[in-house]
């Protein structure tokens, strides 16, 4: 008979933290973390000490002081007696405007160029290659400056539109003025406007919601919803009887008739730009700084997106294209129905980082005097108040939040289009 004895109980000794493989990796990680936190604490402490010895303690009170400077492009009302916070908010909106416009244009251009680069037409494919290499390999700051220089130097200034025999004239039936200060396009006006709702009273983050715009959007969305219903019922009839009823006029009517009705009810008309005094007045003024930045960022990022799209398409086995061709699909439909949907799962992850790059590159706006958040909070406000650390830290936080939001949204989209595996 054998007696089972318990193995001797191992008591924990400190040396086991190093010599026992069960604990070693945790020990190393804890030590590394400690060192990292010490280094961070030293940096922060050093900064605070140095600022104190300069007599500049960290405060954010200056944000409620009047800014004192003007901003030319503002989506919301702003005047120079508003606070620095308001100025930063206006700048933030300008950053978002150019980022959104840039991302949309870059995507459209990039997809076209990427597909065309694979074209069997030799000339087209080569031209696209030259485009991609040219834009990809020159710093975007230079493209921004070039775009601005061309817009400023090549276009006529407003005073050229004056006089008996003006050197320049307005384009598109005298409705659009293209000048070296920007492009003036007709604006939407409502003679029986519903007015605005003021949100957040007098605070620095106040904004207005246009009721006219809301009404138009509501009618448009309702129209699209009913149009979809009509399509679904037509689909049902087709499945049941095999005959598809004609829906095109019904669908157009349900969208456009209410839309036109509401536009007429609101007294919709266009306001045209007109040369008055030094500048064109009226109309919507798209400044050269915005155009140059938008153009340069889109063209530059489009070159990268084109390469991603090309890579995504090449990643789809050629057998798929041939199989689709064997089923009788034309090449355009093969691209849109077979290849691109599959390529998307390869394309979207690198696309996210290009959107992030474009957004971050928009901080080069100051090169053309576009007042984005780097120009307002990180530029004039910082300079006038002398609060470098506070402004830069906040600026970094703002870009971090914008970037994380973009990548969050794109990740959601990615998880929807990625290949569903069974």
């Amino acid at each position, binding site marked *: 008979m054998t007696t089972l004895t318990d193995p001797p109980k191992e008591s924990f000794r400190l040396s086991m933290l190093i010599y026992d493989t069960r604990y070693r990796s945790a020990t190393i990680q804890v030590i590394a973390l400690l060192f990292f936190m010490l280094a961070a604490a030293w940096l922060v402490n050093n*900064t605070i000490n140095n600022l104190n010895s*300069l007599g500049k303690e960290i405060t954010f009170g200056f944000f409620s002081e009047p800014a*004192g400077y003007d901003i030319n492009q503002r989506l919301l009302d702003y005047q*120079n007696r508003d606070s620095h916070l308001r100025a930063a908010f206006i700048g933030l909106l300008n950053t978002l405007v150019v980022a959104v416009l840039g991302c949309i244009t870059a995507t459209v251009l990039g997809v076209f160029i990427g597909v065309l680069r694979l074209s069997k037409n030799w000339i087209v494919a080569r031209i696209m290659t030259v485009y991609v290499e040219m834009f990809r390999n020159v710093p975007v700051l230079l493209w921004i400056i070039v775009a601005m220089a061309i817009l400023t130097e090549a276009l006529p200034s407003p005073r050229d539109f004056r006089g008996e025999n003006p050197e320049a004239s307005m384009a598109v039936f005298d409705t659009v003025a293209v000048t070296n200060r920007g492009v003036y396009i007709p604006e939407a006006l409502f003679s029986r406007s519903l007015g605005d709702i003021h949100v957040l009273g007098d605070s620095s983050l106040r904004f207005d919601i246009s009721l006219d715009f809301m009404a138009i959007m509501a009618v448009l969305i309702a129209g699209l919803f009913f149009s979809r219903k009509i399509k679904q019922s037509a689909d049902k009839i087709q499945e049941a009887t095999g005959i598809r009823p004609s829906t095109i006029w019904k669908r157009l009517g349900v969208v456009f008739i209410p839309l036109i009705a509401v536009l007429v009810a609101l007294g919709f008309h266009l306001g045209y730009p007109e040369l008055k*005094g030094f*500048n064109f007045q009226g109309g919507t003024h798209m400044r050269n700084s915005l155009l140059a930045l938008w153009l340069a960022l889109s063209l530059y990022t489009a070159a990268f997106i084109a390469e991603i799209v090309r890579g995504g398409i090449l990643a789809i086995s050629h057998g798929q294209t041939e199989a689709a061709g064997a089923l009788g699909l034309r090449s355009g439909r093969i691209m849109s129905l077979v290849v691109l949907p599959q390529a998307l799962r390869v394309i979207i992850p690198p696309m996210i980082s290009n959107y992030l790059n474009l957004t971050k590159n928009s901080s080069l706006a100051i090169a053309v*005097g576009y007042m984005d958040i780097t120009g307002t909070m990180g530029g004039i406000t910082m300079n006038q108040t*002398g609060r*470098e650390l506070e402004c*830069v830290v906040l600026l970094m936080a703002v870009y971090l939040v914008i970037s994380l939001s973009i990548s969050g949204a794109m990740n959601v989209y990615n998880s929807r289009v990625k290949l569903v595996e069974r």
Partner: protein
Amino acid sequence: MNKSVILSAAAVACLSAVGASAGTLDDVKARGKLSCGVASGLVGFATPDANGEWGGFDVSVCRAVAAAVLGDPKAVDFVPTTGKTRFTALASGEIDMLARNTTWTFSRDVDLKFTFVGVNYYDGQGFMVPKELGVSSAKELDGATVCIQTGTTTELNLADFFRTNGISYEPVPIETNAEAQQQYLAGACDVYTTDASGLAATRAAFENPGDHTLLPEIISKEPLGPLVRHGDNEWGDIVRWSLNALITAEELGVTSANIAEMGAGTENPEINRLLGTEGNLGEMLGLSADWAKNAIMAGGNYGEVFEKNIGENTPIGLARGLNAQWTDGGLIYSPPFR
């Protein structure tokens, strides 16, 4: 973790910030060179010539200080700064002093922690327009597009001027004087506004200066002068009295032509004290006895520097006006060397 990453990154940015808070004089002597912040190119005030040698009205102040401290007016590292970078450069210790048409204001002096050591040019903000616009007063500028250097006091004055006069304008923010010049000449803005001296200097560089006119309104007081960081009063004294030495030299008739002769000793005790043949003013500053003599020999007295760089016989053609000696009805006035 993200938060600490941001903080530490920001801390890295300003780690280099404060190194030389005290003992700037010793630092400069040890280095053998004065590091002086100047404008990144403004004709007459600070521009490099064809050989890369910096010259100009503001540059002369740097050279005078270098001569006083190191005995060599050429021992200067010129650091070109923009309206936006200048204060950070000075606060971080990258430069020892800033001589860059910078307006002395309360908040810069008190809140930004700088010491303005004096005024070397009394200026005011003006407007330049092309003659063909037919504008004769700044009050007629309703709706005009105005080019403006960002990060300057002029930006705030402009906003105040248009606001108080109840007229509107469209600002075009611009980083440097050179860009402003390009935009203005291309007609992307109707008006260029900055200090009147800067406008005159900019206009002098145009192909056809006669096609442009300065409007009569001067909308602000812009006392321009050199400045140093708070916290090193000895260094502030050296820069202040180097500037005062140039001003006093003009008042007492000491010029670069007669300084060698006067340096041997004169009947006027103040000249003797200034040039170091009497008393020990240099020793009090921690400099050699002939510090002021060196400073004056670097480019001449205040009047000579003015005439050579921006005076009426130069393309810039500025009259002395407010910048004449107090004895001639101007505001240039140095405390006595005693």
